[in-house]
């Protein structure tokens, strides 16, 4: 059962990703990305990470992708123009991608002690996840939040630039 679901949703995920690249209309690409995100959530669930699955749907599929579609709608972006691709991209791009994938694959295959995850009925409860997150991984967790804070400040600074002539509060 788990294997069937895994194959089904991994297939859906890949199909969505390929469709994302092939579609010429931005909104179709955005929707394909949503399919990818939600099928990833199902894969997390199959691995027993229920909180992660829910967070994936709420944050990525529900919030970030809504912003994406929002921007596409706001700009009313039209059809993408098809080109044959630059020669540099073809001569350097494909070998580079192959090399990176090769390196990643060897590292992952050689690495020891990564732990295992299996398709099973087992589920990691949210308490356990948060205990891990707030004790063992506290520093990386907090540092990440500072990173996000910096991003927010950057966005605010960018949005306010050129606002000097206008008076405060309209």
């Amino acid at each position: 059962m788990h294997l069937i679901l895994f194959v089904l949703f991994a297939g859906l995920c890949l199909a969505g990703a390929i469709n994302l690249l092939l579609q010429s209309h931005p909104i179709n690409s955005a929707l394909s990305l949503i399919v990818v995100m939600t099928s990833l959530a199902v894969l997390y669930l199959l691995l027993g990470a229920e909180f992660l699955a829910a967070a994936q749907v709420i944050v990525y599929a529900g919030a970030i992708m809504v912003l994406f579609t929002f921007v596409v709608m706001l700009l009313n972006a039209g059809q993408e123009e098809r080109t044959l691709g630059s020669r540099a991209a073809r001569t350097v791009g494909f070998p580079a991608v192959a090399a990176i994938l090769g390196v990643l694959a060897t590292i992952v295959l050689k690495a020891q002690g990564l732990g295992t995850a299996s398709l099973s009925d087992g589920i990691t409860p949210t308490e356990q996840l948060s205990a891990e997150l707030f004790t063992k991984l506290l520093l990386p967790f907090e540092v990440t939040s500072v990173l996000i804070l910096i991003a927010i400040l950057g966005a605010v600074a960018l949005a306010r630039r050129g606002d000097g002539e206008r008076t405060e509060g309209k």
Partner: protein
Amino acid sequence: MTILQFVIWSLLKVAVVTVVLLMGVAYTVLLERKLVGRIQNRWGPSRVGPFGLLQPLVDGAKSFLKEDIIPTAVYRPLYLLAPIIALGCALISIAVVPFGSPAVTVNGMHLFQISDVNIGLLVVLGITSIGVYGIALAGWSSNNKYSLLGSLRSSAQLISYELALGLSLVGVVLRAQSLNLRVIVESQAGKGLLTWNIFGGLQIIAFLIYLTAAFAETNRAPFDLPEAESELTAGYHTEYSSMKFAMFFMAEYANMITVGCVATMLFLGGWTSPFGNLIPLPQNILLQAILPIFWFVFKVFCFLFLYVWVRGTLPRFRYDQLMNFGWRYLLPIAILNIVGTSLWLAYR
């Protein structure tokens, strides 16, 4: 219990809940028309059936029989997909709601809850957040200025208020120490009204934030800007007709009912009685099973009543007021509420 039994019972529960929910949607529409009618000193629908009680059925038949017009300039695939997403998401999220006491089981399976999920609350939030696409895509694919403006407003509004809505629920989760809706309800079961999160749990501020954000989330007055008829004709569903329009309409009311269910479970003690142990449990087994459902439905009904009451009373907000209110007031208050609740739980 065998897998076959499980599947049959689950299908049965899904069928019953869906039918009841759709009937609920139909009669919520009637309730709204009747109540708004009384608020405006008129009778509302009263011709079809006794007190107009058969009006929803006639309305449904009318929607089915109307001509289905698809304008030529729409982007067809998404135009057709949008109402399905909207209604589908609105109906799915009810699956994790416990309607009655979990003590009533058949072969060890809860009878009054379709599925008891550990992360029930997050499931509801997740499915609601996917539901936005129904509205967003409807407006965009219609290829109409009004529709596009309506759906842009709606997306922006939903993103803004979802934040406050989610944060207002954190206090409740902290108190119950679980995301499981059944556990959250049971954590308030002790002494009736006094242990409900809204009173005994001191979450009344969170409740008010939830209430406001929920009105915005379901695009209801006074936050119904996405379909403000005086400016946008009908907003995102301007180009939809017949059953496709009815699907958006049903999705809106189903969302209202879901929001009411969530408020009932999280703040008003779910299926527990407001009198706690003051009134002893009835001896009759059937009554024991039905009474919790009565309380649940009654609380959701009160919530829907409030929805209509507010619609009949308050004028619509302006768009900048809406955004200001969401980001400058609701969000900080929700965060303060989390800090306060955590401190109280840590040092009591």
